[in-house]
């Protein structure tokens, strides 16, 4: 799932939990799912800095992204 989808799902979950009373079982499931989304989203935001790469086509036709400064 993309970062965007995770955040959207998290927003949905928060809205659902905020808006109505539900069975505890359902609330619990949603909360657990929300926590998982939150964890995944946070992990993605704390990724390492990326270097600039160049996309080249090798002579055998395979595409390859290599660091610009390399």
């Amino acid at each position: 799932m993309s970062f965007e989808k995770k955040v959207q799902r998290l927003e949905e979950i928060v809205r659902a939990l905020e808006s109505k009373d539900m069975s505890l079982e359902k609330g619990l499931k949603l909360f657990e799912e929300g926590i998982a989304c939150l964890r995944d989203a946070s992990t993605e935001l704390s990724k390492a800095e990326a270097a600039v790469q160049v996309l080249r086509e090798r002579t055998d036709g395979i595409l390859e992204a290599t660091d610009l400064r390399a």
Partner: protein
Amino acid sequence: MNSRPARPAARSGGRQGGTQGEPDTLALFDDLEVPPAPVAPRPEGRARRPAARSDEPGLSPESAISVATLTLATRDIIEGAVEPLWVRGEVVGLKEHRSGHWYFTLKDENAQIRCVMWASDARRALAAPDEGMTIIALGKLTVFPARGELQLRVLRIDSSGDGLWRKAFEKLRKKLEAEGLFAAERKRPIPMLPACVAVVTSADGAALHDIVSVVSRRCPITQVVVAHAQVQGEDAPKSLVKALHRVARWGKADVVILGRGGGSREDLWAFNDERVVRAAAGMPVPVISAVGHEVDVTLCDLAADLRAATPSAAAEAAVPRLSDLVRHVRRLGADLRDAAMAQVESARERLADVGVAVARAASHPIERRRLALEGIAGRLHALSPLATLARGYAVITDGEGAPVTSVTAVKPGDAIVARLRDGSIHARTERTESSGEEVNE
């Protein structure tokens, strides 16, 4: 020669143009002897010179030259003497021959000249000029011997002039628009956090530098991948198309920035090339165009999912500010906990009634009942993450493990399980007692 040709003359010239052939192919000239180029025109009187020079071509009745020799000699003199020149004039009577050659007359108020543009040159022009359009043409002055006419062999038509450029642009714009290439409903949103941004531009241009610096400032976790392309010159369209295809085939980019820094209208023309526009429109991921020019919109701008005024602006549109996202996600986390807490509070109220019944069923002695109530009301099931949030209740399930949230769900004699922090109580319902409140499920 009429020094001030009337309009009908100009029109008739146009008609004749279509029948004109390519001078170089006329067999007529193949066997001509061409006098050496620097034959300066002589005063008429000197042509009738004494017999001493009568053997020279054209200097005596005996050595009279043919008309073809005369016109061809004139052609050579003129071609040798005049460099290609830029000429401004109004286009009249343009004929596009099926061979691809163009014939027309350039005129202004007082003069006109016949023009030819060979297919090989005409192909490179953006569009054929319209009748009456003023153009600026680079042409080599020559003579069309078959008519003995001065003729301008047009090599290039300046495309930076508004008329022709606009015509070619509008023609292609209309065509692509009719195909729906620019339709609003084709526009895709830019992803919230692209893991990879592909940049199709010159690897050593200022545009790339600007984009990289904006991305690394705003969102350093996003990968920038450059697909180098020539952005101006004759090979630019092909090069841009290839780079776009490379990115599409690679498949790892989440968004593409296509562009270059500012340039003249002619410099930006590659971004109006049909092949490039189609390639941009056909990309599997959203495309942001960043052709830096304030005035002119390019067709790539229209085909892109988003148009940015400059490469820097394109980069800002492509990636979010990472700190904003971090703040947003943190806030969502806090909201999630708050909302869960509120849910638990309301569930707790609903469960309290059931808890009373369970406690009674579970234990007769007063002391144990009190403890059970505390256990139910004061702690949440240890298995759930809600435990830390909702110290204060137990989960009651029926014999099948389904949660019991209302007294009406159980009848006297039914088995129930109360799950507490440290285990579960298996009990049988003695009786149920409704508090009289409607419990929402």
